[in-house]
């Protein structure tokens, strides 16, 4: 079932005309309201009046996470602050998060987009949506929540954690739609087995999973273990939150980008050149309707390609292929973005800790485990066990506070972490997604 028949099945010509109209409005608005964007456009010699076709999008400068960091926290907001009704944040590359804002209209658009996403998964009014995405500053929880409410479903705002209790609630409340990270879904399956609960006895029908990359094999495993259909959903806070693109339950092949709200591009990450449809490269998005936090050509650092083939679901939106990797060193751990540089930031702030650390990521069962190895130098060594344990716990706590992920610190002997000539290898990711 398509949520918004009119817009989701627009003939390409009409869709593209709408995109151009909205793009022109966006560029005018951003040029006059956001000094930083105006500066970047002036630098490139581009004026709003130069945008007369969708191809002219390529004339505009890119926006990167660095631009967001420079303008922390509200420098890129395009409306007076009184109009901002919601603030969300996601991981930054250092000590400060990436901040985004929403007006009432933006929240409305977001709810619309998430209702579309849920409909893509075959969810409908009357469903019971089990929302285990994290509520808080991350966009996942509230994004899914508002979408489910807009859809007319009954939302259980359970957020993450406390898995046994979640399963009890799933049984008792009759959850029909599951929303969480794919690895958490597998974790739930494991716990159900431990509790001797047969997933087939639950009312669960479909799961909408995202916030981290996952493979076809993982989908097959989730569908088999939980006896549900599993679809991939995509989004990022800088562009909206979840609700940027979604697989349809009809084909589960590629994610329809909601192109009346976002223009996707695929570029060569080295040269910035726009690549033709079908070629693999870095995914870039331009928002068409966002008021508080519009972005122009935001480089996601995710690698994908655009699929233009017609889809049997009837939606005319182009599809993006599932994300296969990134162009940077960002990790996604239990659905949370983690930059090795953030970890370094915490370690360097603790006196005596040397810049020799190693991040090891494993997947134990279904859950991601983060281990950080830190060399014990003379500066931090002590003859007392409790002092070293305290140091380990302090690092774990500060990382949890700053990044929002739990980790285990392992103290190792000096010189055991490989030194290197150029860029040090800081991360060992043992997961085979």
């Amino acid at each position: 079932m398509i949520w918004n028949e009119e817009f989701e099945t627009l003939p390409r010509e009409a869709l593209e005309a709408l995109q151009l109209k909205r793009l022109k409005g966006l560029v005018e608005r951003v040029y006059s309201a956001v000094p930083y964007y105006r500066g970047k456009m002036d630098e490139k010699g581009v004026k709003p009046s130069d945008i007369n076709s969708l191809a002219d999008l390529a004339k505009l400068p890119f926006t990167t996470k660095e631009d967001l960091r420079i303008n922390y926290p509200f420098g890129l907001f395009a409306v007076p602050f009184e109009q901002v009704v919601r603030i969300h944040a996601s991981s930054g590359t250092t000590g400060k998060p990436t901040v985004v804002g929403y007006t009432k209209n933006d929240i409305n658009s977001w709810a619309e987009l998430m209702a579309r996403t849920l409909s893509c998964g075959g969810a409908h009014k009357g469903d019971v949506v089990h929302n285990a995405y994290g509520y808080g500053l991350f966009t996942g929880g509230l994004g899914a929540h508002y979408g489910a409410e807009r859809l007319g479903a009954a939302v259980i705002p359970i957020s993450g954690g406390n898995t046994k209790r979640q399963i009890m609630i799933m049984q008792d409340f009759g959850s029909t739609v599951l929303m969480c990270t794919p690895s958490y879904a597998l974790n739930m399956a494991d716990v159900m087995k431990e509790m001797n609960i047969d997933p087939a006895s639950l009312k669960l029908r479909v799961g909408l999973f995202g916030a981290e990359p996952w493979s076809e094999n993982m989908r097959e495993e989730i569908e088999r273990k939980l006896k549900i259909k599993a679809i991939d959903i995509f989004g990022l806070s800088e562009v909206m939150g979840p609700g940027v693109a979604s697989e349809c339950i009809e084909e589960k092949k590629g994610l329809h980008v909601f192109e009346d709200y976002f223009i996707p591009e695929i570029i060569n990450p080295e040269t910035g050149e726009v690549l033709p449809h079908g070629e693999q490269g870095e995914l870039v998005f331009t928002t068409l309707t966002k008021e508080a936090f519009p972005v122009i050509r935001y480089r996601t650092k995710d690698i994908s390609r655009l699929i233009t083939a017609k889809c049997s679901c009837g939606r005319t939106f182009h599809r993006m292929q599932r994300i296969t990797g990134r162009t940077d060193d960002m990790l996604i751990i239990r659905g949370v973005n983690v930059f090795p540089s953030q970890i370094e930031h915490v370690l360097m702030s603790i006196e005596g800790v040397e810049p020799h650390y190693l991040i090891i990521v494993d997947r134990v069962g279904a859950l991601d485990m983060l281990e950080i190895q830190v060399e014990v130098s003379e500066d931090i060594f002590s003859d007392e066990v409790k002092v070293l344990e305290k140091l380990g716990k302090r690092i774990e706590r500060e990382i949890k506070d700053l990044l929002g992920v739990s980790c285990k610190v392992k103290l190792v002997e000096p010189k055991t972490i490989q030194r290197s000539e150029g860029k040090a290898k800081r991360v060992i990711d043992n997961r085979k997604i």
Partner: protein
Amino acid sequence: MKVEQISVFLENKSGRLADVAGVLAEAGINIRALSLADTTDFGILRLIVSDNEKAKNVLKENGFTVGKTEVIAVEVKDRPGGLANILNIMKDSGINVEYMYAFVQKSGGEAIIVFRFDELEKAIDALQSAGVRILKGEEIYSL
């Protein structure tokens, strides 16, 4: 009054302890007393050796993280109640024992126990006031 103890950080890897013993042996250093504190991930080896400077240097050269701590070596009557007596003195003075371990050798007819206190000076005062003999560093290293 104070004795220098050397501590070494050891990962829980097979053979690390043997490596330490080997390094010290090669340098002709004799271990007088030792204690190994273990946790899930690592261990701290505490040593009283015959030559502190040499031990520290040779261990560092071989890539170990080495620390130095001041501890005291206390003479304890080698009969039931000997230890309890010492610990009661500490309890009464409100001083905490961080850790302790014994020497194999005796001093005269008495046992020798190495203590790490949270307040070293206060502990020395309290013990001496109670007539307890504290051995000097030089006595210990060459026992």
